[in-house]
């Protein structure tokens, strides 16, 4: 009878101990892998329902292996026990027979200690890629060429059309700009020879009958402006940016007749007086300004043929005096 009591006591003790223990099982698909291959570890943990378990989820949770990823955790409870199942993917970068262990961390209610549950070591045979040293070295592979699809062609066509449209709109904007603005920027006038521009402008001033209507200042200003612009373009002198006293010495150096230079000075000085000193020029002076300006342009104009020869043979025939 006493012996029966003893057996019953042992059985109760064994049941009580099982209720407070945990077990981790690991199964694998294979035990032979190439170095760096992904190895699936199927973990199964049986533990009391009150324990808080953390399944392996980082490198430190595996011995001799590196954690790659984990599949979804499956949890089941039966009475006072819980069962957790999860597949973890690990990899190994050493060769040979490598023992891999998984570590599950857990805590108990009312206890701040962190416990670990380590699995049995799983032995894996990790091999490396065998090189065939009998064969010659091979070059690095070319970039892989992916064949173009219809969508690629459509995209390229769309971008090309867009660029074309932008260029066309840009050209239209450029050509449709305000003509005055372009004139101001000096883009239109250089197409014509300086003497043609000057003679046209002088003719326009003449037709406006400015001095005949008492607009002496405007008349003298415009005539001398045309003359100065002509000198600037024809002789490449900064006549528009210089006053009379600086224009005359520059023009004198061109080798023009001294009488012409003297008359030019008289015309410019008369205009200066009209512009800055409220001088009222006489009829003779007004007519002289126009006549002299036209004569000056006609006498000093550079013929188109001369211009062309100058352009084609820049070293010959470029003397200003030849055309004067």
């Amino acid at each position: 009878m006493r012996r029966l009591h003893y057996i019953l006591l042992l059985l109760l003790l064994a049941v009580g101990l099982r209720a407070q223990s945990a077990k981790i099982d690991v199964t694998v698909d294979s035990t032979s892998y190439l170095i760096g291959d992904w190895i699936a570890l199927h973990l199964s943990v049986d533990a009391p329902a009150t324990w808080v378990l953390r399944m392996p989820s980082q490198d430190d949770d595996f011995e001799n292996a590196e954690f790659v990823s984990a599949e979804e955790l499956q949890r089941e409870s039966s009475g006072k026990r819980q069962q957790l199942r999860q597949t973890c993917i690990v990899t190994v970068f050493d060769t040979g027979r490598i023992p891999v262990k998984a570590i599950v961390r857990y805590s108990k209610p009312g206890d701040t200690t962190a416990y670990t549950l380590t699995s049995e070591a799983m032995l894996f045979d990790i091999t490396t890629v065998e090189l065939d040293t009998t064969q010659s070295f091979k070059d690095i592979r070319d970039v892989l060429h992916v064949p173009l699809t219809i969508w690629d062609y459509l995209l390229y066509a769309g971008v090309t059309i867009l660029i074309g449209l932008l260029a066309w709109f840009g050209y239209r904007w450029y050509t449709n700009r305000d003509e005055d603005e372009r004139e101001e920027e000096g883009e239109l006038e250089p197409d014509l020879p300086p003497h043609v521009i000057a003679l046209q402008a002088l003719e326009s001033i003449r037709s406006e009958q400015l001095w005949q209507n008492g607009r002496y200042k405007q008349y003298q200003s415009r005539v001398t402006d045309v003359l100065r612009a002509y000198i600037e373009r024809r002789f490449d002198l900064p006549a528009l940016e210089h006053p009379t006293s600086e224009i005359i010495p520059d023009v004198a150096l061109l080798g023009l007749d001294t009488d012409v230079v003297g008359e030019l000075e008289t015309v410019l000085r008369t205009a200066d007086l009209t512009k800055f000193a409220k001088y009222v020029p006489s009829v003779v002076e007004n007519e002289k300004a126009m006549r002299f300006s036209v004569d000056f342009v006609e006498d000093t104009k550079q013929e188109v043929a001369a211009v062309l020869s100058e352009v084609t043979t820049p070293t010959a025939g470029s003397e200003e005096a030849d055309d004067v």
Partner: protein
Amino acid sequence: MEVNIQEINERIQKESAFIDALRLEMGKVIIGQKGMIDRLLIGLLGDGHILLEGVPGLAKTTAIKTLAASMQASFHRLQFTPDLLPADLIGTMIYNQKTGEFQTKHGPVFANFILADEINRSPAKVQSALLEAMQERQVTIGEHTFALPKPFLVMATQNPIEQEGTYPLPEAQVDRFMLKVKIDYPARDEELLIMRQQIASDVPTPNQVISADDVLKAREALHMVYMDEKIEQYILDIVQATRDPRQFKLERLANYIAYGGSPRASINLAIAGKAHAFIQRRGYVIPEDIRAVCFDVLRHRVAVTYEAEAEELNSEMIIQEILDSIEVP
């Protein structure tokens, strides 16, 4: 208002008659330096002041002294030193033991012509005292304000060689000078005449040819000198180009100009242009007058950037480029 140019010309011819006599008298003592003498006259007529830059020995003192003597006006020379005090310049209150009262002792600034020699040798407080007197044309000592004599012209000099131990004038102060004139060595033949003149037994002395009243009347006449609107626009174009060169298609200069001329630059360019026309005995201003004084009026009012200094560009080169790019009316 209708402007009668003929009348103005006649008046200017009459009022400027002393110019030739004054030039002749000054020419007795000063050989060459025509530009400096003309600028002195422009400053005198335009009621402005002149900042002179040049190495020592170029007759700066002689020029202003001769001008004063030709007018029989008072002249004081002030040597600016680091220990100079504002009271040394404008005067102070002195206690008279006999009367038991404070008496005002006027400083050397009370003169028609002042030569402020090496103005950058004194600290800012002394420079400010002089510049205030220049601007206000009056000085306050204690509780009393005293007007400075008329005409009042300050010619300040800066030595461009030595920079150590100097206090360069701040830009705002420099702007108060109507002109900044740079003078250079005389030509060889001029220097020969100077040498002969100075070693001769009798050094020429100038005679009085005009009075202070003549100068004041000439100043009044100066306002009559006609300036056409085209010239006014030309002045504004030049000054605006120093501020915003892009507006005048001078993009290249935009990075080289730290700041351009102030409205005072436009005003002084107009006055100096009129004064230049006056000393040419003309009753109207032409573009040549503006261009003649442009460098003197603007060189100290256009500040260049570090980029410009790195490119070895100075304000004069920038002004020249502006003048070469802006159309003359």
